[in-house]
């Protein structure tokens, strides 16, 4: 029975599952390095603007909703732990159900993250924190800070939604075919992708929510 599961998990050019797993992990790690540089462009832009307009950035930082940011970070850390456990336990068929439960927990936390982010956006729009004519903070550079705030959090949310899609695929296909679930490297790949999304958020959290708190 397991050979057919193995065959189902086996992709076309590979004749050995272990090497396919190595290749899949190497592939997702290189993709993470690449996406890190995608957000890296934003981090550099943010750092330069912080250097050019320290006062404006600090003041703008003060206006961001720390409560939202904090709860989002906690939610994402929990989900990252859950997906790590899911990936660790996926290899053993006996723990298949437990692993898929962890995947569902991760998805729920991911959706929670998006809802909190939605609430925060609604709060920001109410406070007219959108760079443009009626911007409340007149310190120079504050509009820049919020321009980067909107761009980076929107892009991060897009990446997180893609992650939710991958997790959903895992949970549904895994439930229908537990044998495939225990063999396929896709579980580790999705877990690593989710870990990457959490890494980006950890850096973004510090860049967006912590400056300007000390005033």
């Amino acid at each position, binding site marked *: 029975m397991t050979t057919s599961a193995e065959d189902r998990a086996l*992709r*076309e*050019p590979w004749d050995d599952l272990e*090497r396919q797993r*190595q*290749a899949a992990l*190497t*592939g997702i790690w*290189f*993709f993470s*390095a*690449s*996406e890190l*540089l*995608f*957000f*890296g*462009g*934003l981090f*550099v*832009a943010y750092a*330069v*603007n912080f250097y*050019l*307009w320290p006062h*404006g950035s600090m003041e703008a930082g003060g206006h961001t909703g720390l409560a939202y940011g904090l709860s989002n970070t906690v939610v994402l850390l929990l989900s990252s732990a859950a997906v790590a456990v899911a990936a660790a336990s996926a290899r053993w068929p006996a723990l298949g159900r437990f692993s898929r439960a962890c995947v569902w927990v991760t998805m729920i936390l991911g959706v929670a993250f998006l809802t909190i982010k939605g609430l925060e956006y609604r709060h920001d729009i109410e406070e007219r924190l959108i*760079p*443009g004519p009626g911007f409340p903070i007149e310190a*120079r*550079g504050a*509009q*820049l800070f919020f*321009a*980067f705030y*909107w*761009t980076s959090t929107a*892009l991060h949310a897009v990446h997180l939604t893609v992650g939710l899609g991958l997790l959903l695929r895992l949970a549904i296909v895994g439930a229908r075919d537990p044998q495939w679930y225990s063999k396929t490297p896709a579980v580790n790949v999705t877990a690593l992708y989710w870990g990457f999304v959490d890494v980006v958020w950890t850096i973004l959290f510090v860049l967006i929510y912590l400056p300007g708190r000390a005033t």
Partner: protein
Amino acid sequence: MTDATLDHAPDKPGDDHLGYLSEGGHTLWSWLTTTDHKRIGILYALTITVFFFIGGVAIAIARLELVTPAQDLVSADTYDRLFSMHGIIMVWFFLVPSIPTTFGNFLLPMMIGARDLAFPKLNLFSWYLTAIGGIFVFVALLAGGTDTGWTFYVPYASNYSDSNVLPALIAIFISGFGTIATGINFITTIHTMRAPGMYWFRLPLFVWSMYAVSLAIVLAPPVLAMALTAIAAERVFGLPLFNPADGGDPLLYQHLFWFYSHPAVYIMILPAMGVVSEVIPCFARRRLFGYSFMVYALVAIAVIGFSVWGHHMFVSGQSAYANLVFSFMSFMVAVPSAIKVFNWTATLYRGQISFEAPMLYSFGFVGLFTMGGLTGLFLASIPIDIQATDTYFVIAHFHYIMVGGTVSAFFAALHFWWPKVTGRMYPEAVARFAAILMFFGFNFTFFPQFIMGWAGMPRRYGSYPPEFQIYHVLSTAGAGVLGIAYLMPLFYLTWSIFYGRRAPANPWEATGLEWQTPSPPPKHNFERMPVVDTEPYAYHRRSEAPEVETQTDQNEQMGGTP
């Protein structure tokens, strides 16, 4: 579908069995859903051929406009859109994908003894990303093109340009991720799927160049994607990311853009170096001179290439300290390129040199790349760059490297591996004539630009002072010759698919695993996993070589690899 011109497609198989060309199925659907790296390589070849000629037509009209000092053939706005679309299409839809996605896809698995790339489905997905990006370029073209130049400098591109910048940004964004996926595919394949015995220092240099290029391909394009997303955000949502009125710094965009765009020019030239390092040893029947130095040079170029981008910004208001740092790093990155040129020339020593078309293109490459590289030294020294940047001197420099270098190597690869890809031989005499015509047409077009560039003729000018007219007339005439030299291979290679001589498995008696499969190779490349136990390029015995090598001796020499 961007490359609907399938009539040019070299895949209408003849009557008998034709390897991967017939095994995978004959319908268009079988081609559009193939995961065979060889077929995807051909899909890419068709796509970039279409874009190569569109870009060529755009600049042909611009060059005709430049024959007269006044702006009289096309309006200034149309002229801006012509050179911008030429830049965008040539950079992202011809040069960056030219050698890695066509010959890299086709040959990499065969050269390392694998059945296919590590992620075949991802490979097909990369082609679809490039094709969808191509469709967006068509949308931009049909809507009138964008007039920001391929550099999209802010604040013109974000606040002032009224041309359709957004479709162009989306096109580059999507095709960029297609290239990143190919890069990831190559690196994982080279690391995990080498045949037994194929150690790192037995890899052919083409595979090494794909490895070095994939490093740059994985790490550079994401930063460009971010820079273009920032411009799109500023144009669509009004977020003032680089708007000087709100304190944004246009130079920040230039840092983001050039951090990608300099490694991008290495993404364009490294595969060309890989191709030439395959062709020259084969036709000189000699081992490549200094194989390990060539490998270190390839990887060094890819890595140091990330620390030199500031030499594009010497006059843009960058601080003097940064100018000096980037100037120094630019000189450091020039050293490996110089070594490679010396090694190619030294490979010819005591060889049995024959002058088929691929070798002529490779000679052209070495000559033109040397001139391009040397003028790069001019531009790396700051006082000369202050005079020469944004003039035709810079245009001549990067065309010597990109057109003289990469396109010559692309045609060398096209002719060298044509028997393996299509199972047919190309007509030798016509091909040699086309190679020589391209070399002279190229010099005839771009050498006058060096002279008028140093004399002060700025780039992107539709009308110019009359004292530069002689050079523009020469350059346009040269462009005509170059255009013919580019069209000839299109005809005689298509002709050779149907009427060319049937090619043997190894027409050039070259070493390398890809030549040990029948041509065209079967769908799964190798019946049984090949085992490698010799040096690459084992064209003559290491210990000694007979005084006068007769034809038979060569075959006997070749006997080394099973």
